């Protein structure tokens, strides 16, 4: 599996780059963020925390940069991302592990629906080019041109304030105890509905457009004409010959667009007060909680990398050429 090995190598390099960026940024910034924090928390930080801050921000003058870098890697590999300020003295990793499932659930489901649905619609629009379905394009273009969060604001104004059928925000009904009960799961689904639909609405247009353009290109290939001339059923030509080839760039585009979708979703969580990682990120911004911000950046990057690895496996399944080399 030369293809997969190459891709995994690339993801390892990317993970290294993300950790290194995280190491460099606080050290390259002008000023002393630690000192300003200590001033802000006058006397409320233990000496231990002050020290860990200095270690984290590389302002520990006693150690040189290289040693700091290795120490930082040691911390990361032990899952130690430092202590959060907003939720002092909770470790950053604990704050993140509480909110990560919410985001992964919401973004995961919404992204899968968006990719699968968008590609299918794109196949149809590309196939029936020039018919009324082309009219879907301007609508989806509009939705992709607005920031996700604004669409979220409008959705709340319409379906939660003016016409109150869905909750305005939060992850579940405050009166319920989290657990695997029908009432709780139902409440979670109800709260996730509005954010999920908004994410799908704003991200689906990219998938539709990409698939449509690839379909238009692929359908002028000779093998499609031959398949049609052989008298194969329209459905078979559309999915077995045209769509199967058109989907490949779509899958390799997944890697690159996922980061964008995740970015949009983070802000969406702020709008909906959804208890995920994006909401934590904004609390961290408000509280100037640098360890939490950086921890969240790392975790988001790693999650995106994992999703990319999954997409690569799907690619190998779809494209026999990648399997041939082994």
């Amino acid at each position, binding site marked *: 599996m030369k293809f997969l090995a190459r891709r995994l190598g*690339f993801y390892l390099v*990317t993970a290294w*780059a*993300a950790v290194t*960026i*995280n190491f460099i*940024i606080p050290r390259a910034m002008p*000023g002393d963020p630690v000192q300003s924090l200590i001033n802000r928390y006058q006397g409320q930080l233990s000496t231990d925390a002050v020290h860990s801050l200095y270690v984290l921000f590389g302002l520990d003058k006693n150690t040189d940069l290289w040693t700091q870098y290795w120490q930082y890697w040691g911390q990361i590999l032990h899952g130690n991302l430092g202590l959060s300020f907003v939720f002092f003295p909770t470790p950053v990793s604990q704050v993140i592990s509480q909110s990560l499932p919410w985001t992964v659930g919401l973004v995961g489901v919404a992204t899968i629906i968006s990719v699968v649905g968008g590609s299918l619609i794109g196949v149809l629009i590309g*196939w*029936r*080019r*020039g*018919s*009324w379905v082309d009219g879907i394009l301007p609508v989806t*273009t*509009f939705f*992709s*041109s*607005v*920031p996700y*969060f*604004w*669409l979220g*604001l*409008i959705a*709340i*104004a319409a379906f939660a*304030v003016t016409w109150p059928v869905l909750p305005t925000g939060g992850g579940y009904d405050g009166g319920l105890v989290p657990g695997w009960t029908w009432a709780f799961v139902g409440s979670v689904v109800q709260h996730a509905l509005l954010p999920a639909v908004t994410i799908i609405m704003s991200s689906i247009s990219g998938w539709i457009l990409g698939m449509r*353009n690839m379909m238009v*290109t692929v*359908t*002028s290939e000779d093998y499609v*004409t031959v398949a049609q001339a052989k008298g194969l059923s329209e459905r078979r*030509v559309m999915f077995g010959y*045209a769509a199967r080839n058109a989907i490949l*760039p779509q899958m*390799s*585009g997944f*890697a*690159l667009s996922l*980061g*964008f979708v*995740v*970015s949009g979703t*983070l*802000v969406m969580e*702020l*709008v909906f007060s959804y208890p995920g990682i994006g909401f934590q*990120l*904004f609390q961290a*911004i408000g509280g*100037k909680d*640098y360890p939490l*911000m*950086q921890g969240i*950046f790392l975790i*988001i*990057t790693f999650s*995106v*990398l994992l999703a990319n690895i999954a997409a690569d496996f799907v690619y190998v399944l779809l494209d026999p050429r990648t399997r041939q080399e082994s």
Partner: protein
Amino acid sequence: MAESLGTGSSTSLAPVELDSASRPAARARPALLRNGKAVTGMVMLGIFVVVAVIGPWIAPYDPNASSADLLLGPSGSHLLGTDHLGRDVFSQIIVGTRGVMLVGLIAGVIATALAVAVGVTAGFIGGAGDEVLSALARILLVIPALPLIIIIVSQLPSAGNMVVALVLAFTGWAWGSRLLRAQTLSLRRRDFIEAARASGESTRRIVWFETLPNLTAIIASSFISTVTFAVLSQTTLAFIGVTSISDWSWGTVLYWAQSNQALARGAWWWFVPAGVAIALLGVSLTLINFGIDEFVNPRLRLAGLNPRQMRRRGIRPRIGFTAVLRDAPVEGYSGTKGVHTTPTEVDQ
């Protein structure tokens, strides 16, 4: 050959378009101006540019001036109502246009320059240098941009428009460089480049006069995409309150609306107009890009017939065939001759 490629207007593109010499009418009006989508987009964009330039002079009120009219709906004296301090929302949006456009323009120019530098270099030098530059671009693309921008901007002592534009430029060049590298790779093997090299032209001349003019459309399209990215990111950053809130922009208006419960108070005039402005700007940029895409890839345009005309003529659009009618208004190119060489797939 080099002359005919280089002297075209900003829309001159691929060698395949060269047979347009046989069409004098096409020469008179650049192809992009005959594309309805592109023209619509450019007119809309032009309006935004004008507002950005003269905004502060035509705004009816000072956007920071509070008054006694707290949280009023749209009326004759306040076209888009007022906020919680009695400030005029319409003036805030008009004045904020400049910030949005400026960040988009600066970030777009710098990012595109970086993309051209990295992409064309990578495509030309090949080998290990190419591997390193491409890997750099791919890494930047895979890492989610917004969290990265947030951790950079929030740690800076002050985040004005210029700083934000610079950060956006340095995080947003990768996509364009990827497209440009792919196109450069495909151009590098074309006959006219080989001919230029064989006739002893310097590499500098080959890059500037043989290659770059053929990349114009892709450079333009990646510039537009970067501006879109920058506008959306800048708005998002202002909305979440990372950037300085004393600079007016559409995101700042939304920031104040969100932090003062405009939604719960039903103050729709406070958050709807800013979003519509962003959407219209985004749509105008996307339309221009559609126009460029259809210009680059003729398969994406219908041969001058829109769906209604096709139905009236009893043509059912089918895959694999482009409906060409003898008396049909053929747009932009004659038949499909030479079109097959158009580089449509730029991904590797």
